[in-house]
């Protein structure tokens, strides 16, 4: 691993703070230096940017369709006005009222978001789109009927006693900059955190998320609630800007526009949210100058949205991927110049691990039925602690079904499974993962939107420190922690997945064809690493693998499945030489 490939962000952790501070200073200069009209319009850009950042969490990071961002804005605005005009609180808190009310409005909006999201998010698919579109329309008509507390009569005072004239506009712009920057910093920090990783993971694969010990529902709901919170804040910012609002400020069509724009620019990225905010506000402003109907901007967003969706790309990630490739190229040429090549280690081949003799996983009478088809019939097996057990069999024998059932993805099975004395029955997948049972998948379920290191931090649940993460990556010869997974090939992604799950030091790790996609030489290296893994990570392993060379070289015990039943089970040599096994594999039907 070369130091040269470390990215800027990790070498300079203060960078986001510095950019934030710079943005505030720039905002102050801009706010007090530009013409009043420009400053006022720029405040609208900030409001749109805040809305887009909130939306980016749901649509961009967590991959869902949410169509009521401005409804959250209108709810937030309504609550702020209510607190100002219908309660005695403004007298109590004085100049701090606005800030305080804004937070309260955000929190209540988030709670409402939870109520909306709860039914929609249990099932995957487009339910959230259906429900949020309904909410957008219902909130719109309700607000039309009951109106805002200001009743187009009262004006809401601005924060810190700022006046409602152009001078106040300048001060308010600075206030909006500070709020926007604070939210941006908060979202940035969250995206780098474990919960942010859970959002990215759930957007790519729900099963993968659950297998990393994270509840899918919690991940989705937290994303949606936070997005509602930020949406509510954006609504409050609008009230402060124009001091009086009505339903036209928050039309459902603008919610649609924000959603589509969020898709087009990729508004989970802070800079892209700013760019999106500029598009959202400036294009209609330009149209206004030319006396063209403002709706043309939405038409354009719609077309751009269709383009972005059909090509499955957005501006932000495309730009970032291009930048990363360029940086890698430059670093590669520098590394070549320095002659920086890792020496090939040559150490004695590790022996096949022997167990402790204690049974770790005990499965008894496991039966899985899909309708009339029995996928597994009365399967019982024991995995000994500290060993590597090979589970083999022809295609369709039920091996992956076995892993699915043990992993908790097939709750309707019969039979029992006990891990280290703890019965697994009834536990959902993420609870099993937390109980020390991890698995990898045959299909690629490693979210490409993360870096290798962030993925390991997510899967290990923060239990592994940077040294342990780097150790696990080196152990399997994976790319360094700062590499984005999007540039890692599928075979290597599977290795990263294995490394991540071992780094979380589970009691038992189920590997479902981990070596598919690796070349022959890589197979050999993988086998050697796998043999060392039980001791190195303190983990027992069950491996499904088609390459019998690999199975032979790492497993002490082998179980063979055929037609959902156990055909043979025992030590390596006797199972592989069993004529029954040979014929099951090669279909020597003449033996019938």
């Amino acid at each position, binding site marked *: 691993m070369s130091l040269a490939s470390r990215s800027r962000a990790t070498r300079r952790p203060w960078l986001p703070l510095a950019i934030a501070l710079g943005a505030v200073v720039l905002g102050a200069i801009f706010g007090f230096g530009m013409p009043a009209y420009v400053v006022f319009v720029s405040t609208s850009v900030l409001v749109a940017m805040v809305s887009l950042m909130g939306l980016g969490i749901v649509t961009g990071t967590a991959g869902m*369709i949410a169509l009521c961002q401005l409804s959250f804005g209108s709810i937030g605005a309504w609550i702020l006005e209510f607190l100002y005009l219908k309660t005695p609180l403004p007298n109590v808190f004085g100049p701090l009222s606005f800030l305080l009310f804004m937070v309260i409005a955000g929190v209540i909006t988030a709670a409402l978001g939870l109520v909306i999201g709860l039914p929609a998010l*249990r099932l995957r698919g487009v339910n959230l789109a*259906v429900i949020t*579109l309904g909410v957008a329309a219902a909130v719109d008509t*309700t607000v039309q009927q009951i109106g805002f507390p200001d009743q187009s009569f009262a004006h809401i005072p601005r924060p810190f006693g700022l006046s409602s004239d152009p001078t106040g506009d300048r001060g308010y712009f600075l206030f909006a900059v500070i709020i926007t920057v604070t939210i941006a910093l908060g979202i940035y920090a969250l995206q780098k955190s474990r919960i942010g990783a859970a959002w990215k993971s759930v957007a790519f694969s729900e099963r993968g998320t659950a297998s990393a010990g994270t509840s899918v529902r919690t991940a989705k709901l937290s994303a949606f609630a936070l997005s509602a919170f930020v949406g509510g804040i954006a609504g409050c910012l609008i009230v402060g800007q124009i001091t009086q609002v009505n339903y036209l400020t928050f039309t459902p069509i603008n919610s649609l526009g924000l959603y589509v724009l969020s898709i087009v620019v990729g508004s989970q990225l802070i800079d892209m949210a700013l760019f999106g905010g500029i598009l959202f506000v400036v294009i209609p402003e330009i149209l206004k100058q030319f006396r063209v109907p403002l709706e043309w*901007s939405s038409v354009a*967003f*719609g*077309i751009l949205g269709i383009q972005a969706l*059909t090509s499955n790309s957005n501006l932000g990630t495309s730009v970032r991927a291009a930048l990363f490739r360029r940086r890698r190229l430059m670093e590669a040429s520098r590394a070549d110049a320095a002659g920086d090549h890792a020496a090939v280690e040559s150490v004695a081949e590790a022996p096949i691990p022997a167990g402790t003799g204690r049974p770790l996983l005990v499965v008894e009478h496991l039966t899985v039925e899909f309708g009339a088809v029995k996928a597994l019939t009365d399967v019982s097996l024991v995995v000994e602690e500290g060993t590597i057990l090979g589970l083999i069999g022809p295609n369709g024998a039920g091996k992956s079904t076995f892993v699915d059932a043990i992993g908790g993805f097939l709750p309707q099975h019969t039979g029992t499974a006990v891990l280290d004395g703890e019965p697994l029955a009834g536990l959902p997948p993420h609870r099993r993962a937390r109980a020390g049972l991890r698995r990898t998948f045959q299909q690629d379920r490693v979210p490409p939107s993360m870096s290798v290191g962030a993925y390991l931090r997510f899967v290990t649940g923060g239990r592994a420190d940077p040294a342990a993460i780097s150790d696990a990556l080196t152990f399997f010869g994976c790319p360094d922690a700062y590499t984005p997974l999007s540039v890692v090939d599928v075979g290597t992604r599977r290795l990263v997945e294995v490394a991540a799950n071992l780094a979380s030091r589970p009691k038992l790790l189920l590997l479902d064809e981990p070596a598919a996609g690796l070349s022959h030489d890589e197979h050999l290296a993988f086998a050697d690493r796998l043999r060392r893994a039980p001791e190195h990570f303190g983990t027992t392993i069950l491996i499904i693998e088609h390459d019998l060379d690999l199975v032979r070289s790492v497993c002490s015990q082998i179980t063979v499945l055929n037609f959902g039943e156990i055909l043979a089970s025992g030590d390596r040599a006797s199972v592989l030489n069993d004529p029954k096994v040979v014929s099951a594999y090669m279909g020597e039907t003449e033996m019938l």
Partner: protein
Amino acid sequence: MNIIIALAVGFSSGALYALIGVGLTLMSVLTRVINFSLVAVGVFGAYLSIRTSPLIAGASLDVQTVITVVVAVLVAALISGILGWIEATWLSEATTTARSAVTVASLLMLISLSFILFGSQPQPLRPLLIGPAFLIGDVAVTKVGVAMLVAALVVGILTWIVVNRTPLGIRLRAVSDRQTAAELLGVNVKGLQVGVWMVVGGVMGLCASIIGNTAAADATSMITLVIPGTAAALVGAFKNIPLTIVGGLVVGALQGALTAFPSTTQLRDWIPILVIVLFLLWNQRKEVWDVAR
């Protein structure tokens, strides 16, 4: 207020929701998409068709009507077909969510275009059928309402016949079951899917012509009728047409029942949401893991 009266009051809108729901269900089953712009294409067809009236002012009223309706159906079918072609060309193997997201983008586009072309003022979109069909007590059931229910039933029955009794239906079901396998057998998947989009779009054009401005004053409010339509379709889990029709009538009846209590008018707009939420909760008692993700 008894349940019959409530049904009667909400019947016209309920029948309309049912028809929209049937269209949504059809598209969901046959082309794997929740089509949020379904109503929008119909409204577009109907509103554009009234632009033809200066051109055909000389003809008799009946001829004018026929031409207007035909234009409405054709325009709606054409727009819908273009959307279907986009989906079938670039997103043929994408998830339902990704395919549906495109219809959100096209919905945004169509709403904005309708603002530009038709404005937000009520338009002289004359409904094809005017007046009450019959009275229940002192509540009138409109002809439009009856027509919508008949249309929903006819579309449902025709669909059932086509899907279950014709060679075309075998193809449609094959594509719906396993798109790739059908393609490998030489079935024209793209043509069939674009065809479904065009037919359902055309039905929506006809539907918009029939209801005219009775359901909503302007184009945009009419387009948002897709929301109670999705509530109806959800009752049938986007699969079952008879349940969808019942769902539409129930949403309408609930809204109708609420009109008896003037203090609850705001609640009326939340009825579709409420139905959606209740059905989602009911549908999802058990956690299911999707193999694909």
